[in-house]
């Protein structure tokens, strides 16, 4: 897999796609504590807990509130699926 310097990020709930875009870094509240992803992260699936998700994109920090669900990382695509997620 060619090295890349960006991650694609999607945050999806059952009734909407909350966020879709590129980022340099993503931090999610996993079930046992925060997990951060940088580009070229190994494939991973993790359950999420309740807390704040942070997306760093071009020096900007975006925050989301997520409650449960899971994160799936593969091939520089970070998908967060949660029953409830909202930007804040």
């Amino acid at each position, binding site marked *: 897999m060619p090295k890349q310097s960006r991650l694609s990020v*999607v945050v999806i709930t*059952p009734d*909407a796609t909350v966020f879709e875009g590129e980022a340099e870094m993503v931090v999610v509240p996993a079930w046992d504590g925060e997990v951060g992803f940088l580009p070229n992260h190994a*494939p991973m*699936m*993790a*359950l999420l807990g309740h807390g704040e998700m942070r997306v760093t994109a071009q020096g900007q920090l975006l925050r989301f509130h997520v409650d449960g669900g*899971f994160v799936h990382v*593969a091939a520089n695509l970070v998908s967060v699926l949660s*029953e409830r997620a909202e930007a804040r």
Partner: protein
Amino acid sequence: MSKTREIKRRLRSIEKTRQITRTMEMVATSKMKKMTDLVQAARPYSMGLEEVIGRLTDPKLRQRYPLLRQPSRQRRAAVILLTSNRGLAGAFNVNLIREARELMGRLEADGVGVELHVVGKKGIAFFRFQNQEMVTTRTDIPDRREPQHAAWLVDEPMKAFEQEELDAVYVVYSQFRSALSIPPAVMQVLPVEPAKASAQRDADLEAGMYILSPGPDEILNKLLPLYVRNRVYRALVETSAAEQSSRRTAMKNATDNAGEIIDNLRRTFNRARQAQITQEISEIVGGAAALE
């Protein structure tokens, strides 16, 4: 004289009816638009869930998860029927009820005990009239469906399934393929059938490349209920979109029919009026002729 007045009254009444059906058509059109957006918005989430579950599910390990249990013989099944709270939607509810009754007939013929859960006043009214026992009835699910409404419906049956009190759960709903194609359908919610489970198990996972946190079992046990709820949620939003689309068609037909009746009445009215005038003239002419 009295005839023209009679026709005029009917004309007015039908024009008012047409006004109402036309308004309902427009309301349904705008609601349908919103519901279709919801149907679209629900797609990415369920695709994401399906993909991950497909990757994690090993058909050999089915018996480990209560929700993947494949009962060798069905003894008891739950049928959840989704109907609407309001009528004037053409054959929408009738079709759903027929589908549910066919399914129940099939199950009962196989010796399966069926418990019926009904959503929506129309379905409830029908089965109450039939003296059919309903385990739960709900009329409190609004047109704008939210994911939590699916949890209200399916959490109890899901628990019963885990405890082996139920062997299958079906949802009778209306598919929303397009505004014109909204066939009633049966969805088997439990036991869960992960789509193409083995085909999607990819090489990375087999090779142990994936970091799984906590572990595959815990993840699956958490995700399977989400998956079940999500399928019910999708059935809910599709049914809601289908209801509006069916109402729109019904109201459009009603408006068109009213227009046709109005045209006919207007023609009859004009003819009657003309006949009356002609008669009056001939009376006057006749009277004048008699005087000469």
